[in-house]
C-alpha cells in the first residue's frame, strides 16, 4: 500500500503537467540556445567594438559609436532607401500583379488552369542564387535582353537602375507564390452570390470590385505581411546580382551588414554589423506591433 501511494504523485505529475513540458522541452532548448540567446547577444554586441578575428568580443564597450559610424555612412542610408524600395515594390506591384493574374485565371475558364498556375509558380521553388545567376547572364551586355531590345546597356552596372533590376528579378521569382495563395483564397468566394450577380446582369468589373476583392481582403493582408517579411530580409538575389554595387548603390540592409562584418574587402567592423542587425530587429518589432494592432481591430 505504502509503495503504491509513493508512486502516485509522480504519475499524477507526469499525466497532468509533466508530459506537455517534456514533449516541449527539446523545442524550447533549441529556441533558447539557437534563437533567443543569439538575438539578445546580437543586441548587446551592437554596443561593442570587435572584429572577426577577436577571441573575446565583449572587450571594448563603445556605447553608441557603432550607430554613429553607421548614421554617418552615406551607403547605409542608400541601403535604407533601397530596402524601403524593395519592400514597397513587393507589397504594391507584386501584390497587384499576382492578384490580377489570380483573378484573370479564376474568371478566365482556362482549360489548363492547373498547369498555368504551376508554371507561374515554379520559379518560387528554385534557389534564388540559381535564378540570380541566370538573370545575370540575361542582363549582361551581350545577354538576351540587350539582344532583344537591340541596345548595348549594362543593366547591373547602372547606379540608378541596378536596385530596380534586382527588384524586378525578385518580383519575377515570387509573383507565382502570391498568386497561388490568392487562388486558394478565391476558392472561398461564394459562387451563389456571383451567379445571382449574373442574373442581375452585373459586369465582370463590378463582380470583381464588389464581390471578389472584399472576400479576398484577408488574403491580401496575408500576402502583404508575407512579402513584407520576405523582402525586408532579402539577401541572395542582391548579393549574386550586384554584390550591392556598383559602388554600393544597390546595397540593402542585409548586404551592407555582410559587407561590414564578413566581406573580404569590407572594413571587418562586426560591431557596426551588429548595430545594423539591431536596427533590422527594431523595425520588425514595430511591424509586429502594427500587425497586432490591426488584428485587434479585426482586420485580419
Amino acid at each position: 500500500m505504502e509503495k503504491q501511494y509513493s508512486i502516485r504523485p509522480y504519475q499524477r505529475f507526469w499525466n497532468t503537467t509533466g508530459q506537455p513540458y517534456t514533449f516541449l522541452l527539446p523545442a524550447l532548448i533549441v529556441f533558447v540556445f539557437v534563437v533567443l540567446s543569439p538575438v539578445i547577444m546580437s543586441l548587446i554586441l551592437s554596443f561593442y567594438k570587435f572584429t572577426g578575428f577577436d577571441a573575446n568580443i565583449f572587450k571594448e564597450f563603445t556605447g553608441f559609436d557603432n550607430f554613429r559610424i553607421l548614421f554617418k555612412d552615406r551607403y547605409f542610408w542608400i541601403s535604407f532607401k533601397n530596402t524601403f524600395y524593395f519592400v514597397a515594390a513587393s507589397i504594391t506591384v507584386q501584390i497587384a500583379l499576382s492578384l490580377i493574374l489570380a483573378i484573370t485565371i479564376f474568371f478566365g475558364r482556362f482549360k489548363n488552369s492547373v498547369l498555368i498556375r504551376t508554371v507561374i509558380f515554379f520559379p518560387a521553388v528554385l534557389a534564388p542564387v540559381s535564378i540570380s545567376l541566370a538573370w545575370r547572364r540575361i542582363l549582361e551586355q551581350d545577354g538576351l535582353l540587350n539582344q532583344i531590345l537591340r541596345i548595348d546597356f549594362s543593366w547591373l552596372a547602372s547606379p540608378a537602375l541596378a536596385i530596380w533590376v534586382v527588384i524586378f528579378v525578385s518580383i519575377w521569382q515570387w509573383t507565382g507564390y502570391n498568386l497561388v495563395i490568392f487562388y486558394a483564397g478565391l476558392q472561398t468566394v461564394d459562387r451563389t452570390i456571383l451567379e445571382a450577380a449574373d442574373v442581375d446582369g452585373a459586369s465582370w468589373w463590378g463582380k470583381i470590385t464588389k464581390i471578389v476583392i472584399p472576400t479576398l481582403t484577408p488574403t491580401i493582408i496575408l500576402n502583404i505581411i508575407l512579402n513584407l517579411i520576405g523582402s525586408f530580409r532579402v539577401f541572395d538575389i542582391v548579393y549574386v546580382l550586384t554584390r550591392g554595387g556598383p559602388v554600393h548603390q544597390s546595397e540593402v540592409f542585409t548586404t551592407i551588414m555582410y559587407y561590414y562584418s564578413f566581406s573580404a574587402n569590407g572594413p571587418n567592423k562586426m560591431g557596426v554589423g551588429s548595430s545594423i542587425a539591431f536596427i533590422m530587429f527594431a523595425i520588425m518589432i514595430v511591424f509586429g506591433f502594427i500587425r497586432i494592432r490591426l488584428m485587434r481591430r479585426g482586420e485580419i
Partner: protein
Amino acid sequence: MATRTFFKSRRAGPEGEYGIDRKKDLGFYIYSRILIILTLIVILVPVLYIFSLSLRSKETVYQDFLFLIPKQVTFQNYIDAFEYAKTRLDVSFLQMFRNSIIATFSSIIIAMAIAALASFSFSNYRFKGKEFTFTAIIASFVIPAQVLLIPLFFILRQAGLINTYLAVIIPYVGFLIPIATLILRSFFEQIPKEIKESAKIDGASDIRMFFQIVMPLSKPAIASCIILLFLETWNEFIFALVFLQNPKFQTIPVAIAKIAGGKYIVPIGTYGAAIMITIIPVLIIFIIFQRWFIAGMTMGALKG
C-alpha cells in the same frame, strides 16, 4: 485546409469552375488570353534561354538568339561544368550535392521530430505558459535570420563547429522548428477528439497515441511540411556562405554563386550548364511532387 481548397478546383473540373462566358464577355476573354500568354513567356523564356545556352557549342553561342532551339546541340558544356567545378570552385558537383543533401536532410529530420513533439504538446494538453511559449516560438518567424548571423558565428567558432555540417544544421533546425510547429499544431488540432478519447479508454498511453494515431493520421500535413522545410534549407544561402568557408563543405547555392564575378572567366555555355545542373534536380522533384509543393508552400502561409 490549404490542401483541400487547392485541390477542390481540380477535382471539380471545368464544369464546376465559375467563370466568364466567352460569347457574352469577349473583351475579358481576349484580355485574359493575352495576359496569361505574356506572363507564361516572361516566366519561361529566361529559363529556356539558359537551358538553350547550356546546349550550344562555343561557335554558335551568339547565334540564333531568339530561336531558343540551338543550331547544334552539344553536351560538352555539362562535361566542362563538371571539370570547372572540380578545378576552379574546389568542390565537385557530386560533393556539393552530397553536402546539400547531408545539411538539408539532417536538419529536416531533427526539426520535424522536435516540432512534432512540441505540436503534440500544444494540441493535446492544457498547461501553464502554453500560449506564451507558442507565441514566442512563432514570433521568431518574423525576426530576420540575419540578426542571428554574427552571434551564431562566434558561438559556433567557440565550439569549433565552423566548416562542419553542424555549423549550418544547428541554425537551420532553429529556423525550421517554428515553421513546422505552426503547421503541425493546427493539423493535430483538427484530429477529432473522439478518436483520441476512444484510444484512451482502450488504455493507450499518450506516447502510444502520438505514434499510433496522431502521426499516421497526419501524413499529408507531414509530407507538405517536409517539402516546405526542404525548400527553405536546400535554397538557403547566407548562413552557408558565412559558416562554410571551406569549399569541401559548401552547399550548392554557396558553391555555385562563386561562378559569378569569380577570379576566372567562365565560358557562357559552361556557365549555363552549371546553372542547369543546380536547377534540373529540383525541377524533376517539383514535377513529381507538384501538388505537395504548392500545398506545402501555401499551407505555411495560410496557417500564419
